[in-house]
C-alpha cells in the first residue's frame, strides 16, 4: 500500500468503518437530520438528544463509504457531552484539518481524518455526517447535501 493510502485508511478509520460506534436510531429523539451526498447517493441520518444546550446522546444510521462512516462514528464519540457551541467550534477545526491538512494535537482520535485532505474527491465524505449533525443541532428539518461545499 502506498503511504497516502495508509494515511487515508488508518487503522482507526478501518476499525470505525467496520464497527461503527453509536450506529443506531434514537427513536424518541428531539433532533434528527439527514445528509445526502448526491455524487454517490450516500445518505446518513443523525440523531441528537440535547439537554440544556448540551449533547446528551448522539447516534447515526445510513450507508456510505469507509470514510464517511468512520467520520460519523468518530464524530458521535467526540461530540457526546459537548455543548452546542463547543461542538460547532470542533467542527470548524475538523473541517480545517480535512480540507487543509494541518491537524492540531487537541483533536485526538479525530486527527485520524487528517489524511483525507490529500484526496480532494473524498473531502465531502468526511464532512457529510458533520453537516447533518449541525443541521440536527440547529433543528433544521430539511435534508442537507454536500453540494454547498463546492
Amino acid at each position, binding site marked *: *500500500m502506498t503511504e*497516502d*493510502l495508509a494515511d487515508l485508511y488508518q487503522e482507526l478509520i*478501518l476499525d470505525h468503518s467496520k464497527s461503527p460506534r453509536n450506529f443506531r436510531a434514537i427513536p424518541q429523539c428531539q433532533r434528527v437530520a439527514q445528509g445526502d451526498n448526491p455524487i*454517490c*447517493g450516500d445518505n446518513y441520518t443523525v440523531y441528537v438528544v440535547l439537554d440544556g444546550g448540551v449533547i446528551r446522546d448522539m447516534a447515526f444510521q445510513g450507508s456510505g*463509504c*469507509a470514510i464517511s462512516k468512520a467520520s460519523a462514528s468518530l464524530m458521535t464519540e467526540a461530540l457526546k457531552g459537548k455543548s452546542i457551541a463547543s461542538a460547532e467550534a470542533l467542527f470548524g477545526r475538523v473541517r480545517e484539518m480535512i480540507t487543509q491538512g494541518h491537524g492540531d494535537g487537541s483533536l485526538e482520535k479525530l486527527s485520524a481524518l487528517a489524511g483525507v485532505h490529500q484526496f480532494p474527491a473524498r473531502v465531502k465524505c468526511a464532512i457529510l455526517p458533520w453537516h447533518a449533525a449541525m443541521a440536527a443541532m440547529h433543528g433544521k428539518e430539511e435534508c442537507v447535501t454536500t453540494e454547498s461545499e463546492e
Partner: protein
Amino acid sequence: MVENWNEIRHDFPALHQLVHGHPLVYLDNAATTQKPNIVLETLLHYYRHDNANVHRGIHELSNRATTAYEAARVRAVRFIHARESSEIIFTRGTTEGINLVAASWGMSHVKKGDEILLTEMEHHSNLVPWQLLAERTGAKLVFLPVTGGDEGLLDVDRLDSLLFRRVKLFAMVHISNSLGTVNPVSWLCERARKAGVVTLVDAAQSAGHLPLDVQQIGCDFLVFSGHKLCGPTGIGVLYGRQELLNEMPPYQGGGDMILSVDYAASRYKSAPHRFEAGTPDISGAIGLHAAFDYLDEVGRDRIWEHDQLLAACAHHGLKDKKGIRVFGPHAGRAGVVSFMVEGVHSHDVVTVADQKGVALRGGHHCTQPLFHKLGVESTARASFYFYNTEEDVDRLIEVIDEVQRFFS
C-alpha cells in the same frame, strides 16, 4: 493484431503518464475517452490558420472556417449513414440533443394524457428531459422494464403491450453505460414504427464503438457526444429524420438560425440551421471530423471486437473471484463492466485503484433509478476502449485483489 493495438497507444499522449507513481491504466472511457494527436493537431491548425466566425463571412478565413464546419457535418452524415447534411445538428452533446428533441418536438407534439415510453435503464440525460416535458404538458412517462436480475436485460416481451396505448415517443439507450447491455434497437424501432411511435436512440455509448447505421436502425432521432469517441468536449450530434425536423419549431433563438428578423417577429431557416442559434462550437465540430476519420481508419468493427474481448476477459476475471458481484449480461456485452466488492463501498474501491494508477469510476453512473431497482446504491465500473490492452485487464484484476486484501 495485439502489436497493432499497442501501436495505436502512441497516438494518445495522455495514456503515457504515471499516476501516483504507476503507469496510468485508463478505464473510465464510458465517461470520456482520451484524444488522439490528430484531433489535437486539427484543433491547433484551425486556430492557427483558419479561425473565424462561420456562415455570414465573405473573407478568406471566414470562408475556410465555414467550409471546414460544414464539411464536418457532411462527414457526420457518412459516419452514421444519414441521408443528408440537413439531418445533422451540432449540439453540445447527448444531453443537449435529447433536450432539444424534448423541447422542440415534444412541446409541439405531446399533449396532456399522452405517454412517453422509456426503458428502465436510461441515463439521467434520457430521463430528466422527459420528466420536464411531462411536467409541462401533463403527459405521462411509462417504462419498458428491466429483467434478468443483475444481468439487466430489457423485457422485450412487454413492449407490444406498452406500445398499445397513447405512446407518442419511445426513447431508448443503445448501450447501457452502467451495465454494458446492448439493446436490440433495430427491432425496438421497428415495433415502435409499426405502432406509429416516434423513436429516439441514445447512442452515447455506441457511436464510437461499433458501426452505426441510422437507416438500418430505423430510428427517427439519434444522439451522441463527441467527447466519448475521441473528439473534443463541447460538441455532439443530433440526427433527425428530415420529415420530422422540418416541422419542428426552433429550440434556441438568435443569430444564424433566421431568414429575416423584424422587431415583431422572425422567419426561421430550415434544418439544420434552424436549430443552431448563435456561434456554434466551430473548433469542436472540426475536431470531431478528425475523430470520425480516425475511428473509421481504425475501423469500428475492429473496435467493437476488441471491446468485447476485453469486456469478456474482465467479466470472467471478476466473476470467478469470491466476494465480487458483477452486473450486466453474461454474453454479448459491451466494454463496460460494473461490479461490487463485497463489504467495500465503490468509492473506496476507486480510491484504492487510483492510488495504483488504475482509473475507474464509482457511483450510480447517472442511472440511479435502475440501481434502486437492482437494490444497489453504487458500483465500481471499468469501461474499455480500443487503446486498452489485456494487460490493462490484468492490472484491473490485480488491483481488485489488493482492494480485497486491504479491506478484509
